[in-house]
């Protein structure tokens, strides 16, 4: 069976390698392990199929609920369905942590934006102050000129 998978459809090998090595260093604390490059290919391919399998299942669940957009709950339900329920709790925790970090980042960014806006307003009002003074002087000068011409 011919299988042509372009680079863009695969997970990056370096990252899969890293995940594998870190797992093995847990299994074998004395670091006495080696991984044949064919095995790395096997892991990469397996991961790709796992994503296919999980997303097809999640998509079915999403369709059943008559929604267009797959959401995280569909994914969690799909994991249960494909018997990877052990993954659900750690994934939920991970997602909660991500949401928290994101909210903090947004909050921080929003605060910075507010501060920046405030500074801008202050700066421009300071400039305006000098401008209006200048304008007044010019106006006065004009009036004087007018008076003279009469």
């Amino acid at each position, binding site marked *: *069976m011919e*299988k042509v998978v372009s680079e*863009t*459809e*695969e*997970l*990056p090998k370096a*990252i899969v390698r*890293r*995940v*594998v090595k*870190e*797992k*093995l260093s*847990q*299994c*074998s604390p004395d670091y*006495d*392990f*080696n*991984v*044949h490059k*064919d*095995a790395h*290919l*096997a*892991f990469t*391919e*397996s*991961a*790709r*199929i*796992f*994503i*296919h*399998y*999980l*997303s*097809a299942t*999640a*998509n079915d669940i999403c*369709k059943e609920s008559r929604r*267009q*957009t*797959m*959401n*995280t709950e569909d*994914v969690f339900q799909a*994991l249960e369905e*494909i*018997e*990877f329920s052990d*993954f659900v709790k*750690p*994934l939920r925790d*991970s*997602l909660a*942590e*991500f*949401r928290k970090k994101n909210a903090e980042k947004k909050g921080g960014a929003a605060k910075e934006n507010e501060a920046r806006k405030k500074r801008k307003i202050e700066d421009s009002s300071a400039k305006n102050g000098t401008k209006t003074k200048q304008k007044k002087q010019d106006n006065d000068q004009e009036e004087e000129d007018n008076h003279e011409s009469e």
Partner: protein
Amino acid sequence: MRQAGSYSGILMSGKTGPHLLPLARIKKIMKKSGDGVKMISGESPIVFSKACEMFIGELTQRSWMVTMQGKRRTLNKEDVASAVMATDLFDFLLNLVSEDTFKSS
């Protein structure tokens, strides 16, 4: 340690350090999964990314057990194939491991 750069991913807390699986690539793979995987919420690839890491970890661990049973220290693809065949959970991979590319030459 690599900075986020073009990859956006979640950071795994704990001793294993940061892992970054590119969300855009995960999205691409998801969209090729079959009919109608068109719209995906922003957070879904994040869950997929982490689920994928956990899956690779699980497969690695079981494959390593086969390696050790053979009193070897080099994990090869036959060990992965054996782990898949020995684990019901990995039935969806049976097609993959039965392909010629997986069998030992």
